[in-house]
């Protein structure tokens, strides 16, 4: 009788195929070689993207996951391969991105002996993963992967790491994939309590100035329609967090803008004037709240949240509705009164005008000679489709691009929000593009961040992903420089960069390029980039010392938001 057993390495690949994984973002090496060998025979069933660094692989998997809503898969070898994933793991954890990371490990007899490329990656990643495990026996591989996928994508999603010893990869075992449907100790979707919904409805119905804050929980819960239905019925003004952008179209009449340190003026200021604050799928991050002691103290807080540990963590809730907002929002919509809040909305619009004249017009329609980051985004808006995806890095350009990009549909925002990982955008844009080749992907990046993962231009070239890279070059680590200007007496300590010729670098990667230094050329260059059907690299040399406003300085209250 023929032996039906296969090697553990092949079980890894067959398990990923069984989970309908489309891509593996990875990098081979000694301890993962059996899996790469098995992968060779599965090229027709699963695609592998060879990045230029493991950090690139995990950020690409994150970009893929954020756009597709599916679990991103990345793979690396033991030791340095595994530790290079750590930044991405931390990033995915804090931004609730579903990932399965598979790392090779030295053979089990060598564990703990400081063998070549041995590192305790399970130990390293324990505080940063939603779950992790080391697999040392071939029969444990498929169950670990099944459990990993279930944990990564359910509840509040997050990264999972599965470390597989080389002997387990090489040993023979039966393949019988049983998807994981539940775990005794893990309840990802708490049942929404009717009584809490009723209490919340009562609070909302008696509110004079209610105010909705929505976050990425709406996107993750696929509750965009439910949010809109709730807003349509109640007439409540709504503002978004960084990662919530796109969950509601900015064309919605009650959309009032963005929250946080560099969000819009009105949404921040009026947080301290509402009487009921309805937080939906957001976690009151310190970049949103500013000084907690002076945050919305006048308001009753209603918190719709899936993660129990987020309730009362930063802001105490008068009424907490624990559960998936996809489920709780319709229940709440049913119980709240139809209403409108025209006068209250007008207060937002009035302050919006103030921000327009003090900040927005200077950013978008500048009259000074230097180019602004804002005007670049304005032209991108002119040539982008509604479902175009904006991927940004971290810093000034991130905040400017976020402020001015017109979000029309969900899953159009990919950025490193919680962790603030410079170097995130280039690989994340690649993953975002592979998640949907039909959508425009614009990667806006600064001259600091791009140099942290610039090698991934090679991956963009090899995959011919039609990513549009927009480098906003001010020859500075601009956000740090801004803080140095405002809070450190302009002592520009190690923030100015001597940069390479970025165009030459991009050309070396065979990308179509363009460099803009004059305002007159900007529109045409952006237009050319946006209609180009392959990868494109646009460098825009912008004013060196522009600042991002509005701004809530650290330690200040939301009502102390500054326009200059």
């Amino acid at each position, binding site marked *: 009788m023929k032996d039906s057993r296969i090697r553990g390495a092949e079980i890894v690949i067959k398990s990923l195929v069984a989970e309908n994984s489309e891509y593996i973002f990875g990098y081979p090496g000694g301890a993962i070689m059996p899996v790469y060998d098995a992968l060779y025979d599965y090229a027709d069933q699963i695609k592998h993207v060879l990045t230029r660094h493991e950090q690139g692989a995990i950020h690409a998997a994150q970009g893929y996951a954020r756009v597709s809503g599916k679990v991103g898969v990345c793979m690396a070898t033991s030791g340095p391969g595994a530790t290079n994933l750590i930044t991405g793991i931390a990033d995915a954890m804090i931004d609730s991105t579903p990932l399965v990371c598979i790392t090779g490990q030295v053979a089990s007899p060598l564990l703990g002996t400081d063998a070549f490329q041995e590192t305790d990656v*399970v*130990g390293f990643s*324990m*505080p940063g993963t*939603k*779950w992790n495990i*080391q697999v040392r026996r071939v029969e444990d591989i498929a169950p670990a992967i099944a459990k990993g996928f279930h*944990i990564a994508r359910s509840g509040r999603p997050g990264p999972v790491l599965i470390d597989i010893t080389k002997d387990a990869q090489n040993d023979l075992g039966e393949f019988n994939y049983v998807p994981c449907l539940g*775990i*005794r*100790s*893990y309840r990802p979707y708490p049942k929404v309590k009717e009584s809490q919904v009723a209490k919340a409805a009562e609070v909302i119905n008696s509110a004079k100035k209610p105010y909705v804050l929505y976050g990425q929980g709406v996107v993750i819960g696929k509750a965009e329609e439910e949010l809109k239905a709730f807003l349509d019925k109640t007439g409540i003004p709504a503002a978004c967090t960084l990662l919530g952008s796109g969950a509601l179209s900015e064309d919605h009449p009650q959309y009032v803008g963005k929250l946080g340190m560099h969000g819009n003026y009105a949404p921040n200021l009026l947080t301290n004037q509402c009487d009921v604050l309805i937080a939906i799928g957001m976690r009151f991050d310190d970049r949103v709240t500013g000084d907690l002691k002076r945050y919305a103290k006048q308001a009753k807080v209603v918190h719709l949240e899936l*993660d*129990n*540990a987020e*309730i*009362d*963590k930063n802001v105490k809730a008068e009424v907490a509705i624990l559960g998936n907002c996809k489920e709780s929002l319709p229940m709440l919509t049913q119980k709240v009164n139809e209403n409108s809040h025209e006068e209250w909305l007008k207060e937002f619009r009035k302050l919006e005008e103030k921000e327009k004249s003090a900040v927005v017009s200077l950013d978008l329609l500048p009259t000074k000679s230097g180019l602004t980051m804002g005007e670049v985004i304005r032209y991108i808006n002119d040539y982008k489709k509604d479902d175009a995806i904006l991927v940004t890095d971290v810093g000034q350009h991130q905040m400017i691009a976020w402020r001015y990009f017109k979000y029309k549909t969900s899953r159009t925002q990919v950025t490193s929000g919680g962790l603030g990982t410079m170097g995130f955008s280039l690989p994340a844009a690649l993953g975002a593009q592979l998640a949907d080749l039909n959508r425009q992907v614009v990667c806006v990046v600064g001259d600091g961040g791009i140099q942290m993962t610039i090698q991934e231009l090679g991956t963009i070239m090899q995959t011919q992903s039609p990513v549009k890279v927009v480098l906003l070059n001010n020859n500075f680590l601009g956000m740090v420089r801004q803080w140095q200007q405002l809070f450190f007496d302009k002592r520009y300590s190690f923030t100015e960069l001597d940069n390479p010729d970025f165009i030459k670098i991009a050309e070396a990667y065979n990308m179509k390029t363009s460099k803009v230094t004059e305002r007159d050329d900007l529109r045409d260059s952006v237009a050319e980039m946006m209609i180009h059907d392959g990868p494109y690299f646009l460098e825009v040399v912008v004013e060196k010392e522009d600042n991002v406003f509005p701004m809530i300085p650290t330690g200040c209250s939301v009502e102390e938001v500054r326009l200059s």
Partner: protein
Amino acid sequence: MNRYTVSLFTENFIGILNRVTLIFTRRGVNIDALTASESKEDGVHRITIEVTTTEDQVIQIVKQTEKIIDVIKSFYYKDDEVVYQEIALYKIPISSLDPGLEKVIRQYNARIISAEKEFVVIEMTGHKEDTKALLEILKDFNILEFARSGRVAVAKPMGTIEQYLNN
């Protein structure tokens, strides 16, 4: 700051203790004592942790430990909400044995559980304050070694892990 007993019911997997203690470490909360054992339920492990901190911190810690996949349920209690005991062992040189020691042993309801050529081991079970008081006295008897366990505790409130599991 108050003393709290955090009681966790978990799966018995490798690394679970590490995962749990990381949550305390991250918030800078020192673990005063810790014990781990099986529970009444088959395959359910229990970890009892004693900490001194604020109620806000302990609430957050409990919620965050519950996020650990292999943690089934976590609870926290003030001292008056649990029945708890700690065991202490005291190693005393033979040369210190005298009628005074007998009196102390009787007074504290302690007992000698082992007698070797050079030393005896006294055991006492009770609360930390009591075992500490005995320690102070035994210092006069040239105590050689002292060890105290973490608390083992059962909760006074009647909700059980069993109910939770069947829910």
